[in-house]
């Protein structure tokens, strides 16, 4: 135990540098995936066939390619096309796009769960499609969507470790580097695991809070 604490004080500053990047990647890709997911979802429920099919196609392509391959593509292939990104930018964009497909399906489920009568009431007072979405459908869908959204947040926190494959020195990669140079695998990976757990606690509380709230009539 004492050895572990000694290791911890020695490694924590380096690992915390990794934590900073983990949080950056998570928050960045969370914002991007939410915005993109919302766009896909709204396109998906459009009554115009071309728009909804385009969105369905995009979602299926994104879902059908592993996150790690998407990251490789953005980081290693895009420069050939003239778009050079830093590893951090590529990680945020890659994870953001990859997760936008799951966000979109979640948002769509929320939008489609809204009673048709709500939409008719909005139309009957003269609202157009977009205003109906913005003023009536989306505010109600948010409540339904929040519990699964919390889950997605936790998954994104953990999947941010995939950014290590394109050299982002986030928590998992920092851990691996320290472990391979000190051979203190137990201490290092226990610390890494604990740090992930600590970061996910606020998200878990968030999910619980909204699950309770959504349960209320």
């Amino acid at each position, binding site marked *: 135990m004492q050895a572990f604490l000694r290791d911890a004080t020695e490694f924590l500053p380096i690992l915390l540098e990794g934590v900073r990047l983990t949080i950056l990647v998570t928050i960045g890709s969370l914002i991007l995936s939410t915005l993109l997911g919302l766009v896909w979802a709204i396109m998906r429920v459009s009554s115009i066939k071309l728009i909804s099919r385009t969105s369905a196609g995009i979602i299926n392509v994104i879902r059908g390619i592993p996150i790690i391959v998407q990251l490789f593509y953005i980081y290693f292939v895009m420069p050939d096309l003239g778009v050079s990104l830093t590893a951090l930018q590529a990680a945020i964009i890659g994870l953001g796009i990859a997760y936008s497909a799951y966000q979109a399906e979640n948002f769509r489920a929320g939008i489609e769960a809204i*009673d048709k*009568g*709500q939409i*008719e*009431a*909005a*139309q*009957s*007072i*003269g*609202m*157009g499609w977009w*205003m109906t979405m913005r*003023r*009536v459908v989306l*505010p*109600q869908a948010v*409540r339904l969507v929040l519990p699964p959204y919390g889950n997605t947040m936790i998954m994104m926190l953990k999947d941010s470790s995939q950014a290590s494959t394109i050299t982002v020195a986030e928590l998992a990669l920092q851990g691996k580097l320290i472990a391979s140079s000190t051979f203190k695998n137990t201490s290092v990976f226990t610390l890494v695991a604990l740090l992930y757990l600590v970061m996910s606690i606020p998200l878990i509380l968030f999910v619980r809070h909204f699950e309770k709230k959504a349960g209320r*009539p």
Partner: protein
Amino acid sequence: MIELRDIRKSYGSVEVLKGITASVEKGEVVCIIGPSGSGKSTILRCINGLESYNSGEILVEGQRVDRNAPSIVSIRTQVSMVFQRFNLFPHRTVLENVIEGPVFVKKEPRKEAIERARMLLAQVGLAEKADAHPPQLSGGQQQRVAIARALAMQPKAILFDEPTSALDPELVGEVLGVMRKLADDGMTMVVVTHEMGFAKEVADRVLFIDGGVIVEQGAAKDVLNDPKHARTQDFLRRVLHPL
């Protein structure tokens, strides 16, 4: 002010409206009665552009109703709708429900809209519920809010789609009372209803619809007290004396 000319409407291969021709004058109260599935609600929904129709023509103040044309917005602000299941916005307060259309669709100043909304809520007897949320209200109260929401648009006519059918029987009276007051004030109303008492006392004219056609129409007293058509007689007998 509302004119329907030979309206036909099909869902797939089922024709629900088989040539409806009727008109509603300004200030008139017209009740549409008839068995379930006869096409009553569909008529209202076509007037408001919530449904399209296959052929014929609907005119509101001379303007053709086409749910895909931009003009539908102006028609909807002139002809409000009250639904069977109220369809209030549950995430907004009663007051916000009432000002939603005036402020966000008609772009009225918020302060004016709130003032009028409070007046309308008082008119339907719910001034003290302005800050409540719809799920906290009884069905009758919700429907009265829905009427206030319709009135807030300052419409030229209001369409009521079975406004009391989803209510507990003891709550029907409070809603019909508000509607009668509206009729007395000269509001143009088209009411799909099973409340024969209301039709008899408040309506100027009654249309009896069955199988997608108008079987009989005329002054409310004539149609309800002395129906000419056998199908109307049969319907009224069943409704008025279910045993």
